[in-house]
């Protein structure tokens, strides 16, 4: 599997505060990669740098083979982004939202129509297409947001807390959809703080104070630290780190 996202010592500072501190990783094609960490650990900042929304302070990286400093335009063509905030136009219908984002990616009318048809079928969005996006129930909004971010078939999809506030049944279904995407070769970058979700990932990285403190396959990590599940593992790792920090 070729690597689609490679970063080396990526750092972002806001003034004196280091939000992301020299993180390095490589993610392969079709991999579901999880970014775990408490709130404020630097997950979102890291993803925003990879999406071209933020310029790194230092470090190197390529996304889809394109340099994150110089090739922003090409990166933007090959990625999809679903933010933790509901970022669709509430006053436009679901269909109009899809149509608009599809047009922005320069899909031609016919392709766009077909893709919208396909995606609504897959995600069960049909009956909601003509309703204003702002009036959709939360779970459906998130499906719609997902649909808009994959319309152009991105090679890499960044999902920032995609299932925040959604019930467990819905989350499970949502992950089913994500898995289908990964099977088709899309690389998925997911931030989450739901540990059950993290177990769906092929590999996870645990972030703390801007650094990656552990990286690997969820079940390997559980074995390595001899914990019953990811939740325990996460709590143990974080509290260990915090103790060290207070010792110093």
């Amino acid at each position, binding site marked *: 599997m070729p690597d689609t996202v490679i970063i080396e010592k990526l750092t972002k500072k806001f003034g004196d505060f280091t939000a992301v501190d020299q993180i390095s990783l490589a993610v392969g094609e079709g991999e579901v990669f999880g970014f775990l960490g408490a709130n404020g650990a630097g997950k979102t900042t890291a993803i925003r740098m990879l999406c*071209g*929304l933020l310029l790194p302070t230092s470090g190197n990286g390529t996304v889809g083979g394109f340099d994150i400093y110089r090739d922003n335009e090409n990166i*933007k063509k090959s990625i999809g982004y679903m*933010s933790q*905030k*509901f*970022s669709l136009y509430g006053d436009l219908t679901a269909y109009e939202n899809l149509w608009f984002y599809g047009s922005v990616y*320069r899909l031609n009318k016919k392709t766009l129509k077909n893709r919208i048809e396909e995606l609504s079928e897959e995600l069960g969005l049909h009956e909601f297409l003509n309703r204003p996006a702002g009036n959709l129930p939360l779970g459906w909004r998130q499906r719609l947001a997902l649909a808009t971010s994959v319309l152009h078939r991105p090679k890499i999809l960044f999902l920032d807390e995609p299932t925040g506030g959604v019930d467990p049944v819905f989350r499970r279904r949502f992950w089913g959809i994500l898995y289908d995407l990964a099977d088709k070769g899309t690389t998925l970058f997911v931030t989450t703080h739901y540990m059950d979700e993290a177990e769906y990932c092929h590999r996870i990285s645990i972030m703390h104070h801007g650094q990656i403190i552990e990286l690997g396959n969820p079940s390997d990590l559980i074995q390595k630290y001899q914990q019953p599940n990811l939740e325990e593992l996460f709590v143990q790792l974080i509290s260990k780190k915090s103790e060290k920090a207070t010792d110093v």
Partner: protein
Amino acid sequence: MFKIKFIAQKELWHILRDPRSLIIAILMPIVMTLLYGYAINLDIKNIKLAIIDFDKTSTSSDLMGRFYNSGYFSEVTNPVSINNPEMILKKGQANAVLIIRPGLGEAIQKLKSMRNIASVSVDNYELGLIVDGSDANMAAAAGSYSSIVVSQVIKDNLPLGFEMPGIKISRQVLYNPDLKSSHFFVPGLIAIILMMISALLTSVTIAREKESGTMEQLLTTPITPRQIIIGKTLPYVGLAILDGFLVLGFGVFYFGVPFIGSTLLLFVFGVIYVIAALAIGIFISTIVKTQQLAMMGAMMVTVLPSVMLSGFIFEIKNMPLVLQIITYIVPARYFLLIVRGIMLKGSGIGLLWVEAAFLIALAIVLLSVATKLFKLRVS
């Protein structure tokens, strides 16, 4: 280029979906035109005048008749007290009180029987006029209208062959011969409405995308900040121009404001002015984060200066120096002169090039600063 079209189309959807912004955009110009046309009437008529007649001759009642029939003054019947004229003003019964002292009849008689000019100054008779100065415009008008009436009386009573002594001013008002204030405010209103629609609505719409997080989503797509800005502002250019014509049409066809000059020239300058206004709107939206702040900021930065510092209501020459300097960066200042010039005087580019140059320069500077700042802020 195509992406700009889609952004513009989406923006149009927003406008059409949101009845509030449509109402603001269409109704406001109409309401403001009517408001300025009727409520804020700068033509002073019907000054309430109380006359206290101590002379009680046929001459004095003739004078009273002339005042009330002049069209400038309206009669105050039964003033509270003839011994205390100040009370009449204080109670608001009248804007001015004319006191006819005893001796008017005699003075006029003398005037009639006058044989040569030299004897006029011998006998000085004075009429008393007390004016409520709390409304300065009204006070000034009362004074000058009174002089007109009185000099007419003197003129009519001079013996045949005598002319009024002294130097006379023969006044001819060009371009707005009736001195109607509608001729004056319609051009100003066009400047204000265009500024309001362009700056206010664009700053709000950009702030809205920031507030809702859709701006961030857009920036992860291959669209550039410049395309976003152009696409988002285009529909408002159209809306602003529509509003410009709305006010213009209302002014010309309803209030009878003349339009002598070239419509095309006005249109071209209108577009340049709108670009300057849009730049201000973009500028504001880069600084603020919420729609509410954008709205307040736009009111402060665009509407207020356009009303107060453009020469629309207050003469720039009479302002303190600091404010006069500030007026140089108020686009409405130049556009106002251009609109008035084109509409009322039929001026062409030959006469308006200085204002045009300033306006174009201002538009270019504002636009480049605004887009640079916008790009800087989003990345």
